[in-house]
């Protein structure tokens, strides 16, 4: 049976450049200027899982992301890696979305372009790391959803999974369709080669706006987000030096006092 697989990826700031990220103390937004965006590491594992299944059982892999249009190259990269088609969900109306609004938007795009046998995501994103989108997608789409997957196989319409738990692992057999969240252990993502890179430009990449999707506008973007980030700030890295003088006993007393003031139990 050929498999029609959707993969959701998230462009995130390249962690090699995290030292350049700053936070605007007034707007509380991240300044990512000059920091390249990459496909999240776990999302590459999700894409590899989909490509492996397609290569073995035939079918099609379609990649989705909800992000600004500037991340188009990240989707081209996914196409270069081997995906067949990509959809970039990009609209000002999607801005400020939390995980619930994001998953609602992704689910709408999946519904519109589907049906799919499988939806695969990374277990969590590299930046927010909430680990919520995969399960939320399952709920929006009315499909079974399983996360923390360390092994993934397929046989005669049934997906065989190993899922890591706190105390060990559980094996599942899942009847399709389903939503899966994979960990790094599931595979080693392939590297993009030159031929894949050149083919990518001729593969379909479509930008979808809010009006193109069957979404309830009250459930997308900032309006559709029941959660908002709390305070966000850069830790203070400044150092202060103070010379403590006096007799050894006085110095020791002062050190203990200062440690207690800093919240250290002595």
């Amino acid at each position, binding site marked *: 049976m050929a498999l029609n697989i959707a993969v959701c990826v998230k462009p995130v700031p390249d962690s090699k450049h995290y*030292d350049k990220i700053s936070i605007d103390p007034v707007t509380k937004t991240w300044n990512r200027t000059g920091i390249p965006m990459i496909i999240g590491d776990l999302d590459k594992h999700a894409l590899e899982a989909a490509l492996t299944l397609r290569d073995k059982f035939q079918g099609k892999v379609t990649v989705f992301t909800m992000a600004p249009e500037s991340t188009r*190259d990240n989707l*081209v*990269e996914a196409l*270069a890696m081997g995906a067949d088609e990509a959809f970039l969900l990009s609209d000002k109306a999607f801005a400020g979305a939390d995980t619930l609004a994001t998953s609602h938007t992704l689910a709408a795009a999946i519904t519109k372009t589907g049906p799919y046998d499988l939806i695969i995501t990374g277990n969590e994103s590299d930046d927010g790391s909430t680990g919520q989108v995969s399960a939320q997608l399952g709920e929006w789409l009315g499909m079974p959803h399983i996360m923390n997957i360390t092994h993934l196989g397929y046989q005669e319409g049934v997906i065989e999974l190993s899922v890591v738990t706190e105390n060990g692992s559980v094996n599942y057999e899942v009847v399709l369709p389903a939503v899966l969240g994979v960990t790094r252990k599931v595979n080693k993502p392939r*590297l*993009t*080669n*030159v*031929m894949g*890179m*050149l083919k*990518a*430009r001729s593969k379909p990449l479509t930008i979808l706006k809010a009006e193109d999707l069957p979404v309830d506008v009250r459930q997308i973007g900032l309006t559709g987000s029941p959660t908002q980030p709390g305070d966000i700030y850069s830790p203070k890295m400044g*150092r202060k030096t103070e010379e403590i003088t006096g007799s050894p006993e006085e110095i020791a007393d002062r050190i203990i006092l200062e440690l207690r003031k800093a919240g250290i139990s002595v």
Partner: protein
Amino acid sequence: MFQFFNEDQKMLQKVVREFVEQEVAPHAAEWDEKDVCPVELWPKLGQMGFFGIFVPSQYGGPGLGLTERNIILEEVSRHSAGLGIAMMTHELAIAAILNFGSEEQKQTYLPLLLSGEKVGGLSVTEPTGGSDFGNQSTTIEKTEEGYVINGRKCFITNSHIAQINVITGTSGVNEKGRKMISTVIVPEGTPGWTAGRKENKLGLRGSVTGDIICCDVKVPHNCMIGNEGDGTKIAMHTIGHFGRSGMAAIAVGVIKGCYEEGIKFSKERMVYAKPISNLQAIQFIIAENMVDLEAGHAMLYNACAIYDRGQSCVAEIAAVKLFTSEAAARASKRTIDLMGGYGIINEYPIGRFLRDSMAIIPSGGTSHIMSIIIAGTVCR
């Protein structure tokens, strides 16, 4: 940083960098220390499409250009200039066959070299020198059955690992009484072809350099590339464009290594509770590294663009080879200065960069030879 790559070239840079970070960077110091060339990587490099990226699709390549070829060499050499020169030399065999070979030679050898199934080499330099090209002692004698090659080549990169070899030699004299230089392909396993002495080099370790000894090496007539007497044209075009631009790309890779490692170290190294990147003397070094990198990039990819437009650019490539190889030596020396005692510790790559840069200078022609080529071209 160089801003004029197109979208495909930018993606290629990213693709190569990702590969290099996984497959090259973790092993570069070991290849240097043990002085071994990672031949086992060849099929992987072939699968990635990194060999013969300038080869048209009818011979199995993607049909890109010298620019893309040198983007690959630069990124590889950012971590391993030794692997860089081994790949560069492999591609000299590809370039010679592609640009001057017969249809049969292209169909036979290019797929093997592009896939990394076989390693390629080009043997030109002799003990009497490489730049005195017309005075070669190696002979390529025509017989009824084919050609017989006798002679010794030295300082040959890939000497002990190459399976498909291109070699130059004299094949008689022309009507003016001058030696005629010819170029032939020596297929794998041809009797009489042996690798001799292996050099213990200062830098570019991780590539094999040594002698090639030809003792009555017999090849059929269809191994001649072009016509008898075309050897100078073939070698000069191949070395002048693919060889020296490749060495320049390797040098730019080393400069980039110095630039990036210098910044990283200076931000991490604390003195008086502050990173040394705050110190003006250190900033001067970082700025000079950036100047060399920017200039090297601009010169290299300008020369490549000229070639990719279909024009000869021997002088421009000689200029960039001269500048970047000397700049790599300057950048690595000053980055060692930046790092103080750590600069000479082999746990850091900068010492290797200095040794590599010293070995890059004579590879493909010394800086003085580059000056002669430049002046000889522009004063013509």
